[in-house]
């Protein structure tokens, strides 16, 4: 069956890019090393060959141009899909991301801003404090940006296609630790995954776990282990943080009465706090226990590849927290 085709997360993204560029001539790309090299993580391999050096452009090291230029190019009638080499670099172009992309339409009362910023994100392989962060929460706090955090190859492809077709700017957080992950990806080029629709990755009755990106797999693994102890996790992956499908999360909590949120981003003022608070606002009396978080440490990330792993939630951490929360 076509829909049972198995693909890697990176390949799925590459395919989405190629399909959308074939579909719409206005779609084009720029970023560092995305052309001849095909991207430092190989995500854009073959695209310059197929679409030419004009539609797949290698820039200099100029993040403010990559993002701000994309904003300008959107006003000029094109659909730029740009790559920052590491998600952390949103901070080297923060005015362009959080002011230009997010607010230009609002400030000028017109224009569409169909820009996708692809952001290789998260901890993997010792890239250090300024190349490993999970910064998706920032896009949630400042209005005007959509935020996608795909956890599977199918979602990576389907959400990216949605992002490219969206007239709004999208921060697209690809987890570097998932690039080699494999999963079924339907072949249908018209298959898009809509924003704002959570994926219930596992059904369960005992406790709701909300997780994104790399943490979805770890939560599922934790769920497998806990099921042996009779703790039945429901794992909900919001897929996009803006818009956020809070309804699905609340419905799950109303069923399970317990909520554990898992994210790689630092704990304090991370998106887990927001989800917890929204659930609490809407389902206070359904909660049998406090909402808990398993999250990244409130520290910069060390360069060392073993130490950095200790800064983000492991399967063990999730298992332990879920066990304790079940006992509250």
């Amino acid at each position, binding site marked *: 069956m076509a829909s049972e085709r198995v693909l890697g997360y990176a390949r799925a993204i590459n395919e989405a890019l190629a399909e959308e560029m074939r579909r719409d001539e206005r779609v084009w790309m720029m970023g560092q090393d995305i052309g001849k090299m095909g991207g430092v993580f190989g995500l854009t391999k073959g695209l310059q060959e197929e679409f030419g050096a004009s539609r797949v452009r290698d820039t200099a090291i100029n993040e403010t141009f990559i993002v701000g230029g994309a904003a300008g190019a959107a006003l*000029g009638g094109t659909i730029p899909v740009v790559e920052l080499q590491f998600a952390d670099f949103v901070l080297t172009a923060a005015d362009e991301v959080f002011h230009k992309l997010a607010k230009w339409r609002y400030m*000028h009362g017109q*224009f569409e801003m169909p820009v996708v910023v692809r952001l290789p994100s998260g901890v993997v392989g010792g890239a250090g404090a300024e190349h490993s962060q999970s910064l998706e929460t920032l896009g949630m706090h400042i209005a005007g940006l959509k935020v996608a955090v795909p956890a599977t190859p199918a979602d990576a492809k389907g959400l990216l296609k949605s992002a490219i077709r969206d007239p709004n700017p999208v921060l697209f957080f690809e987890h570097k630790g998932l690039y080699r992950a494999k999963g079924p990806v339907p072949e249908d080029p018209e298959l898009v995954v809509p924003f704002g629709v959570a994926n219930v990755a596992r059904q369960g009755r005992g406790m709701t776990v909300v997780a994104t990106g790399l943490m979805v797999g770890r939560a599922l693994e934790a769920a497998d282990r806990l099921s042996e102890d009779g703790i039945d996790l429901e794992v909900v992956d919001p897929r996009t943080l803006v818009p956020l499908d809070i309804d699905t999360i609340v419905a799950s909590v109303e069923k399970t009465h317990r909520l554990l949120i898992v994210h790689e981003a630092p704990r304090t003022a991370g998106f887990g706090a927001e989800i917890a608070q929204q659930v609490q606002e809407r389902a206070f009396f359904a909660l049998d226990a406090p909402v808990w978080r398993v999250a990244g440490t409130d520290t910069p990330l060390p360069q060392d590849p073993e130490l950095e792993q200790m800064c983000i939630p492991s399967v063990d951490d999730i298992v332990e927290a879920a066990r304790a929360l079940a006992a509250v």
Partner: protein
Amino acid sequence: MNSADLIELYRTVVTIRFAELRIREHVEAEGFGGFWHPGIGQEGVQAGAVAAMRSDDYLYYAHRGLGYAIAKGMDMAVLFGDLLGRSTGSTGGKGGGTVHFADQSRGVLGQGGTLGSNFVMGAGTATASQLLGDGRVTVVFFGDGAAGRGTWHEAALQASVWKLPVVWVCENNGWALSARFTDQSPTPNIADRAPAYGMPGVIVDGQDPIAVHDATSEAIGRARSGEGPTLIEAKTLRIRGHYEGDRQPYREDKVADDEIPNDPVHRLGEQVDDDTRRQIDAEAREKVAAAFDEALAAPRADPSVIFEAVWA
């Protein structure tokens, strides 16, 4: 420049001047919540450069006045509406004071509130034109102060390497708020920076609208034919304070309020015959007055506008 074009250019310059004066009058009499950064005295740059643009060329303006947009043909009642926070403004009433305004149909694309945003945005729009082959040129206005931002460097390098159809027009009025240009630049001219980017740097008298027009026209020609960007520096003066009401305690060489050295209006006016000029003046004054009244009479925005245009 033929005489019909010259007359139109004069009309633009004098219209901007009357708009400046009308706004000042309003600010002095009643104020409005926000700030107003007057462009009086700099009309020559704004009108001259825009006169060299095609109607479908793209414009990113700077924060000093409305001249850029008036020259590009935007409706003045709409512009004043933005200034006065009226629902009839191009931003639907979100504006007020130092304004954002835009007109997609005329290629008036706006400005960033953070100085220097225009550099990268403008280069990006020019990239779009290059990709689409639409033959449009993007003109980016900016002040001598804004030129200090790193976005200039990133945009200018890439624009030059890609030979983007963009023209950079610096209004060097000698001041960035309280900072004198000569105190914050290591070289005497902004144009001195152009060779670093492998692009021509042109210095022009900003009080001479025709000279500005001609320099811009040449640069636009280069841009349109694929030869890449040009940096134009128009030397002008900031006649008033940074914003209307700024008493400029930091400034010794204050320009007398009503004295505009090398006034572009007079300079251009001298080339128009007296009757025509008087007629244009009267028409412009009237048009400005009518547009301002129209804007004043328009309703303020409904608060629901707050939630509009966050998303497309």
